């Protein structure tokens, strides 16, 4: 039988001399009707370039296909040569026979056009529909991706919808004309884990309905298990291994595949939590950080002069304490208030109410900036590109009124060595380092002042999976060595499982469950924690039927003077409690 798509020895290069700059170096695969192929790899592996080459969008991204063959079986059974097709021929294929969705739903839709217009466009282009017919078709397309109130939403512009909604709109556009092949390029990477589960469920369901084939690109091999029939693992532009899903996951041959499966954090429902440094029963030691009744509100004003009409309750009564040498992970989705909590602890945002105790002494939010240091999410953006590493490491010392003397320099050198960077790094600039190395630099910078608490705000989220594992290892080592307390903010349950001693689950500005990591992850009690954990993909659950859940996160905007009801807690274990639910 002729496959739907056949790719042979695909080669793609960039720049003026594409042959010498190949990013994809001889990739071959076949995709049968109704089959899902997952392409797995880290950034730079060539997986996205491969995807963009199939519908030849790579021509517009500075890439050139330098060799190989790509054949698509058309709906009428004819064979379409994707390599030699002219641009007008390709526009007839794109959207009609090959649909595509992308990583960033927020930027993938045109900000100045309504989503209705953008969906209708597909029908206009490939079905020749106009006017009311096109609008009706667009409404059906939105219904199909389970967007409630579709008729009204058609008139929305993208800025009025959430990321998850926008990705559904993207799916509606990609599937508008029932293409037989959908290319999904990391479609859930930018989304929260529960939204990811919804999108995955939707894709699985639509695939069943339409019988389309899918190429699913991801860096997360855990996500693959739920959806793929076949897996292709890419590294440095080559397909190092491909085969049936079970064969790859259970019997990986290539060392890189084995590395992805074993060395990279995968979520294991609380079976992979840390065993070191558990809390002592006797409360002898002082907590390194104690937060009491933290509240952060941002007033809402209709205009600059008018009075506040309400407030965004970003953090609404958060309490926790953190012992020396302990990691407390704060997990939650975007907008839940987890980053605001971290920033409030550092005094980067002003807390409306609440107190912090750092070490033994009571400190205001501003004073606590000294023993508390922070590592940010994006190592590319959080190092000043014009400063040498030496200046970057000297900055915290100077900022706190210290002098850069021999002692400081010795500390720089030893910290650099400690975080695994070469000694000669001091004279270099941030751009000379890779993402993982930069995050090591950020860690070294945070440690320059010998803090007792380090706030890690999604500190490994921007890193590739295998780099992530190494940075986590480093963090654990440093914690043991210096007795550091970590406040680890993350949305990634697999990462949290590896590093946390305790976990606080935050939802809509409030902690809903807190306790030791094993208990929270293996026996979640609050419904939100359950939902969060159920949404995490794992390698164990294969061809899973994702449940479609369209509940919306409640609004954090409250009327002026609103106070939440006092929390009532239910104790489940020695160190595990959950908020009672209404």
């Amino acid at each position, binding site marked *: 039988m002729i496959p739907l798509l056949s790719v042979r020895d695909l080669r793609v290069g960039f720049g003026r001399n594409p042959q010498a700059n190949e990013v994809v170096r001889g990739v071959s695969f076949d995709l049968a009707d109704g089959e899902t192929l997952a392409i797995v790899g880290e950034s730079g592996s060539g997986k996205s370039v491969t995807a963009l080459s199939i519908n030849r969008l790579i021509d517009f991204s500075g890439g050139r296909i330098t060799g190989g063959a790509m054949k698509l079986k058309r709906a009428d059974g004819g064979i379409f040569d994707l390599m030699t097709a002219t641009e007008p021929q*390709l526009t007839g294929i794109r959207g009609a026979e090959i649909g595509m969705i*992308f990583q*960033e739903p927020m930027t993938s839709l045109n*900000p*100045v*056009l309504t989503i209705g217009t953008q969906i209708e466009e597909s029908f206009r282009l490939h079905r020749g529909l106009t006017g009311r017919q096109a609008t009706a078709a667009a409404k059906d397309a939105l219904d199909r991706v389970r967007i409630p109130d579709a008729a009204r939403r058609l008139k929305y512009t993208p800025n009025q919808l959430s990321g998850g909604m926008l990705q559904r709109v993207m799916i509606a556009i990609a599937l508008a004309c029932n293409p037989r092949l959908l290319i999904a390029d990391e479609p859930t990477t930018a989304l929260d884990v529960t939204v990811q589960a919804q999108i995955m469920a939707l894709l699985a369901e639509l695939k069943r309905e339409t019988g389309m084939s899918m190429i699913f690109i991801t860096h997360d091999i855990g996500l693959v298990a739920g959806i793929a029939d076949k897996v292709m693992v890419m590294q440095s532009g080559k397909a190092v291994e491909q085969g049936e899903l079970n064969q790859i996951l259970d019997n990986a041959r290539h060392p890189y595949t084995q590395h992805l499966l074993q060395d990279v954090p995968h979520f294991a429902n609380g079976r992979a939590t840390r065993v070191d440094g558990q809390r002592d029963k006797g409360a002898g030691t002082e907590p390194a950080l104690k937060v009491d009744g933290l509240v952060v509100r941002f007033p809402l*004003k209709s*205009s600059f002069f008018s009075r506040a009409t309400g407030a965004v309750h970003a953090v609404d009564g958060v309490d926790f304490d953190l012992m020396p040498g302990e990691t407390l992970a704060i997990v939650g989705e975007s907008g839940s208030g987890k980053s605001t909590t971290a920033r409030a602890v550092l005094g980067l945002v002003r807390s409306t109410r609440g107190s912090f105790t750092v070490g033994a002494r009571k400190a205001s939010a501003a004073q606590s900036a000294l023993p508390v240091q922070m590592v940010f999410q994006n190592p590319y953006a959080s190092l000043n590109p014009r400063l040498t590493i030496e200046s970057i490491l000297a900055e915290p010392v100077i900022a706190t009124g210290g002098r850069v003397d021999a002692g400081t320099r010795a500390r720089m050198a030893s910290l650099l060595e400690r975080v695994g960077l070469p000694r000669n790094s001091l004279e270099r600039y941030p751009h000379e380092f890779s993402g993982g190395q930069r995050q090591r630099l950020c860690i070294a910078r945070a440690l320059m002042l010998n803090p007792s608490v380090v706030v890690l705000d999604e500190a490994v989220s921007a890193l590739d999976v295998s780099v992530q594992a190494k940075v986590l290892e480093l963090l654990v080592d440093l914690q043991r060595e210096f007795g550091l307390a970590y406040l680890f903010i993350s949305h990634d349950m697999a990462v949290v499982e590896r590093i946390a001693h305790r976990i606080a689950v935050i939802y809509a500005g409030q902690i809903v469950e807190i306790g030791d990591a094993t208990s929270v992850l293996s026996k979640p009690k609050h419904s939100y924690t359950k939902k969060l954990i159920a949404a995490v993909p794992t390698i164990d659950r294969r061809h899973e039927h994702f449940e479609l859940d369209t509940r919306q996160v409640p609004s954090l905007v409250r009327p002026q003077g609103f106070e939440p009801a006092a929390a009532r807690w239910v104790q489940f274990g020695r160190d595990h409690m959950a908020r009672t639910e209404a």
Partner: protein
Amino acid sequence: MNYLMRRLAAFPLVLLGVSILVFVAIRMVPGDSITAMLGTEAGLLTPAQRDSLAAYFGIDQPWFVQYWRWISGILHGNLGISVTYGRPVLDVILERFPLTLELAVLSMIIALIVGLPAGIFAATHNEKPSDLGVRVVAMIGQSTPSFVLGLLIIYTLSAGFGVLPAMGEFAPLWQDPLRNLGQLILPAITLGFAFAASVTRISRSAMLDVLSDDYVRTARSKGAPARSVIWRHALPNALIPVVTLSGIEFGYLLGGAVIVEQIYALPGLGRMVLDAILQRDYALVQGSVLFIALNFMIVNLLVDLAYVALDPRIRLGEQ
């Protein structure tokens, strides 16, 4: 609507500031209107004659009295009497303004008709010879002074084709449209050339930015043909900087274009203001500067409204 009211409410404040600035500035220039008017003959005046002339023009009073008289006059719609023309300032300005407005509008139309497509063309042919060609012409257009271009146009037409730009008495648009256009088209081209060059450069760079945006890739993945990708998806997103630039340039042009008016012998606002300054015609200078400032503010407001029309993410009146 609320927003519009608030913006309009700010107008008098800005105008008050401008009025003080211009009132002080023009009086800091050495010389007075009597000397400027009578030239060397001013020396022949007896002190008594001079005093009575000064009293007639009101310049014998302390500056704050003069300022107060002027401002209270404005509140009654009276901008004062021009010394040089012997007529109300507003009449003089309004007589000159249609030409300046028409010239500015024509230049902008030329700039947008030429510059926008040229910029888009260059952006879609990035780093190809045709892009380089457009960029070189745009660079020349931006760096050529208008008097050089104006003289070149006149010289080429008269020496090469024996055609002279229509001179003589200026014909307003509503009286003799053809003759009016004949008089204004060359000055408009002269002004529009540099304007078009700026529009080309800014629309090229804005389009280049936008063309690498994700939603353009999405449009292509839907199968949208190149024409639709450029005009429907990319251009509306690239227009904001073009609108900003056009607004500023248009605002400047409404203040008159002294050099081009001079070369083509056009009675526009620019030459009038220049003459008024040279003649120390205080009332006329003050009045026309206020008028120009008001125009600028109106143009700015229109630009802001255009942003809202172009981009649904921009909301009026929010911080």
